[in-house]
């Protein structure tokens, strides 16, 4: 999700001078708020110090890529566990 947001931001900057103007004015946080960054990433990206927009984009890419690599994947219970739980519950009901 955050990489998608970063891609949108960079694509927009290529054709919309408003993005680099906001960046130069120290208002990039306002632009980031319009996109789907996580709270942590939004804070990290807002704090980047860089000489140019392009440099900001590349450093942002590193942050987002690193965050997505560390993000826990969704953990679904194994189908086997699900069956065992049901079986255990059925056994208990039968005993009762």
């Amino acid at each position, binding site marked *: 999700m955050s990489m998608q947001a970063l891609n949108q931001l960079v694509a927009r900057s*290529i*054709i919309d001078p408003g993005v680099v103007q906001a960046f130069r004015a120290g208002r990039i946080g306002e632009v980031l708020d319009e996109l789907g960054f996580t709270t942590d990433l939004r804070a990290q990206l807002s704090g980047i110090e860089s000489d140019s927009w*392009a440099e900001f984009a590349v450093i942002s890419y590193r942050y987002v890529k690193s965050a997505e690599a560390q993000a826990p994947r969704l953990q679904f219970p194994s189908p086997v566990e699900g069956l065992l739980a049901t079986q255990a519950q059925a056994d208990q009901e039968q005993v009762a």
Partner: protein
Amino acid sequence: MIQITREERHWFLEIAARALIDHIGAAEPPVPVEEILDHPPDVYQEDFGVVDMYSNLWDATFARPPGQRGSIFVRVDLPAKERRLALARETLSAMITSKHGRDLGLPDLLMSELKDSAEYFASFLLAPYAFVQAFRAQGGSEELFGELFQLPAAVAEARW
């Protein structure tokens, strides 16, 4: 400028190509390169000219005569697919040297690897990832790929 990897540079170029495709609203191949140049985003109005030239020296080159609009000077007798590739490649030079490109910091990011950058940018402008994936998902063949996307054989082979 910080040191950047090839992968990071390629990521940026792919997004830059996608921005132009989204701007023109292309939803299927072939990407209308000449239309992008004819109707550029406002920030590149003074940079995306095209001038047909007779030349045996090069297929296309970007130049910005003093006080004039920047233009891609392209050989008039190029085959259609080669012309598309040459225009797509030189579009990056137009962007890098434009006022907006300089405001973005594109020269520092891309000038040192301009040839590789221009070729990579052109290949993704002509055959964006999403279009290639959709073509594959619909069972498109390698033989049809180059024709549908209007790519020179070498680019078609590289992007397939």
